[in-house]
């Protein structure tokens, strides 16, 4: 559908699409991670849109997930900076596959780091939809002993979160060409897969400038770890930023960075 739209609206793009992605429709590429869930998840997250496996989408995972409830994952799509519609990340073998969807502004370095829960060893994927309507899919295998999604949140055993929900700690690091924002927010991020504990998680994250427009827009799913730690890189700017969060119960949190 997207390809069709491009044909009718911008004939000049036809050529580039044809040149750069000549073979998707006829012969789907083989999943480099040989996952039994590839086709299933591709349908859910990419639909019928053309895709390529592309090493330039880098997904960093540890050698082994020592704590399956807190696995650091980095997604780096800086090779496509300025050319991105959105990034979707998922873990093939998690009971809830979707991890996040990320909508970067052109002023943002399209890199994000966060921690996730995993239920067993699984491919972790990131797919970058570029402006020409093609998905670039990267991924990596994560080895884990598992159980991360069906373990009650630590917060569940301790009422600390109840009086500190949404409290955020943040730091700004100055890099050579960017500012790195790292924040941690108190939230149980319950998956709803543990008996008697309903799904309760931060669903929307926005990094906003002083005028309120979003530099980064993220949609999270419950596999993001309890008390999420998320890092964004923003191209150097003079303006101040603040963080806006909303969970699926409708609680909203704001924090100046």
């Amino acid at each position, binding site marked *: 559908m997207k390809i069709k739209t491009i044909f009718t609206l911008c004939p000049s793009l036809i050529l580039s699409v044809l040149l750069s992605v000549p073979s998707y429709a006829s012969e789907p590429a083989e999943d480099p991670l040989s996952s039994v869930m590839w086709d299933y998840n591709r349908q859910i*997250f990419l*639909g019928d849109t053309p895709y390529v496996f592309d090493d330039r989408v880098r997904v960093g995972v540890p050698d082994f997930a020592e704590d399956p409830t807190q696995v650091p994952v980095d997604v780096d799509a800086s090779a496509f900076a300025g050319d991105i519609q959105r990034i979707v990340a998922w873990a093939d073998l998690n009971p809830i596959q979707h991890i996040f969807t990320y909508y970067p502004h052109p002023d943002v370095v399209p890199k994000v780091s966060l921690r996730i829960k995993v239920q067993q060893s699984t491919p972790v994927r990131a797919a970058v939809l570029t402006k020409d309507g093609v998905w670039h899919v990267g991924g990596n295998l994560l080895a884990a002993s598992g159980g991360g999604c069906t373990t009650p949140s630590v917060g569940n055993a301790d009422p600390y979160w109840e009086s500190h929900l949404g409290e955020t700690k943040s730091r700004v690091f100055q890099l050579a060409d960017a500012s790195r924002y790292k924040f941690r927010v108190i939230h149980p991020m319950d998956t709803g897969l543990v008996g008697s504990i309903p*799904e309760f998680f931060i669903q929307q994250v926005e990094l906003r400038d002083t005028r309120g427009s979003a530099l980064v827009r993220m949609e999270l799913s419950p596999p993001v770890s309890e008390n999420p730690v998320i890092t964004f890189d923003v191209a150097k700017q003079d303006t101040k930023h603040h963080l806006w969060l909303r969970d699926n119960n*409708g*609680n909203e949190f704001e924090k100046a960075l």
Partner: protein
Amino acid sequence: MSKFATGKGFAVTALVAAMSLSGMANAGVTDKDILNDQMTTGDVVSNGLGPRGQRYSPLTAVNTDTVQDLKAVWSFSFGGEKQRGQESQPMVKDGVMYVTGSYSRVFAVDVKTGDELWQYDARLPDGIMPCCDVINRGVALYGDLVIFGTLDAKLVALDKTTGKVKWKKKVGDYKAGYSLTAAPIVVKGKVITGVSGGEFGIVGKVEAYDAKTGKIAWTRPTVEGHMGYIWKDGKKVENGISGGKAGQTWPGDLWKTGGAATWLGGTYDPEVDLLFFGTGNPAPWNSHLRPGDNLFSSSRLAIDPDTGKIAWHFQTTPNDGWDFDGVNELISFDYKDGGKTVKAAATADRNGFMYVLNRENGDFIRGFPFVDEISWAKGLDKKGRPIYVDENRPGNPADSKDGKKGKAIRAVPSFLGGKNWMPMAFSQDTGLFYVPSNEWAMDIWNEPVSYKKGAAYLGAGFTISSLNDDYIGVLRAMDPKTGKEVWRYKNYAPLWGGVLATAGNLVFMGNPEGYLMAFDAKNGEMKYKFNTGSGIVGSPITWEMDGEQYVSVVSGWGGAVPLWGGEVAKRVKHLNQGGSVWTFKLPK
């Protein structure tokens, strides 16, 4: 295509927003729908089947001749491990039922099939403090929103199609004992709610919020001395102290933690344009600590829905010492007296008396007992004030030798009331009120107590006992013009569910034994019963779809009886918990 593949780009979002806006104009619940709810039999969009709360339906297909053929068409389980008291009244609109379950859960169910459309589970902190089970009594509908209150004292508006949160507002601090259990009501575009927490020394209040946006419109404290506020152009403006000033009917500082929780919600009469909210016990229970009438505890308040000002009040138990909350629903109705129409309203109080008031000004018309025995008052005076039996007030601990326990007395009714939360019904055909009531007594004594945030603030000890071996519950048909009981149905366990009257000459109610029952409205003959598998403590509804009349009721034993029931618990401890909604109709 899946939601991820199509994405949530700006164009799509705008399109969806446009669609839902046009949908609101066509299909959403309007103020008019709510006002006409009683006569529009195709839906149920208000708590009480109409803002007056009469719980009367003009439907006649299910009647005394046909009701024995009533058959269950589906049953929907609330699931989970959270099977506690289910006191909800379902709502039905455009083929979807909206019903709440214990632990602040909301379900949307396809009424044709019983299929779940969506479910919303509020994530509750462990520190919630419901006094009397983790129940919820139902939602309010407005526009494309489904609005309900949570046990951590939040008002939440959900999208009727997706179940996603549209807005959420904090009504009270759950750590101070506030919670929400009643169904909010919508009047003139405002969603209006009370609060629970009278056992924790909260200050009762009634609050109005813009139903579409959740912005607060006004707040009215129900304890004398507290300032009310109204929001004008987003600014909070003082709107008069409830009762004029502090210290008139309360000693010292006790009004600051005075209770008077508005925990059962309210009704509205468009004719006199007033909200009617009942208020609970003054805090603490030990009445010797707070000599005076303790306004506006154990009262009915008439409140202007536009300004939040108190138009009139009627106090049923001044200086309450028995936990006789005055929260019971005040139901507006008209009757003829010598050719003249009387704009009346009736309420059956926890204290055992039923009152008929002039709903324009709150004047007392008449009052009479609706239970067999009342020990604490000899009767009512001309203004409806109880004539106390002084020796039947629990004694002052200060008079005892060690100052630790006052003289215990045996009082009737018990603190759970001649009638508790379960709403009665008024039939426009028989002119009778159908009052679910209980016959029980209590031993009660006072103890010293001081206020501590988030701790029980009672200053009393108590046990409860039954008056009769063969029954506690009594469903009564009461004539509001004479105070006479026309018929009664006796039930072994205490009754704890709401009543529904229909033009089919029927009265429906459930019992803790699990039966949905239907009675002949004129003589009380039981015409139908069906066991739903767990105790019924919810309120039945009826509506019409595709030319057929449906009846629905929520099943799931719980509420305050098994928690506080004392000796009475023996009669109910074998009853099993549940959590489901049953729907019935006649075979074609």
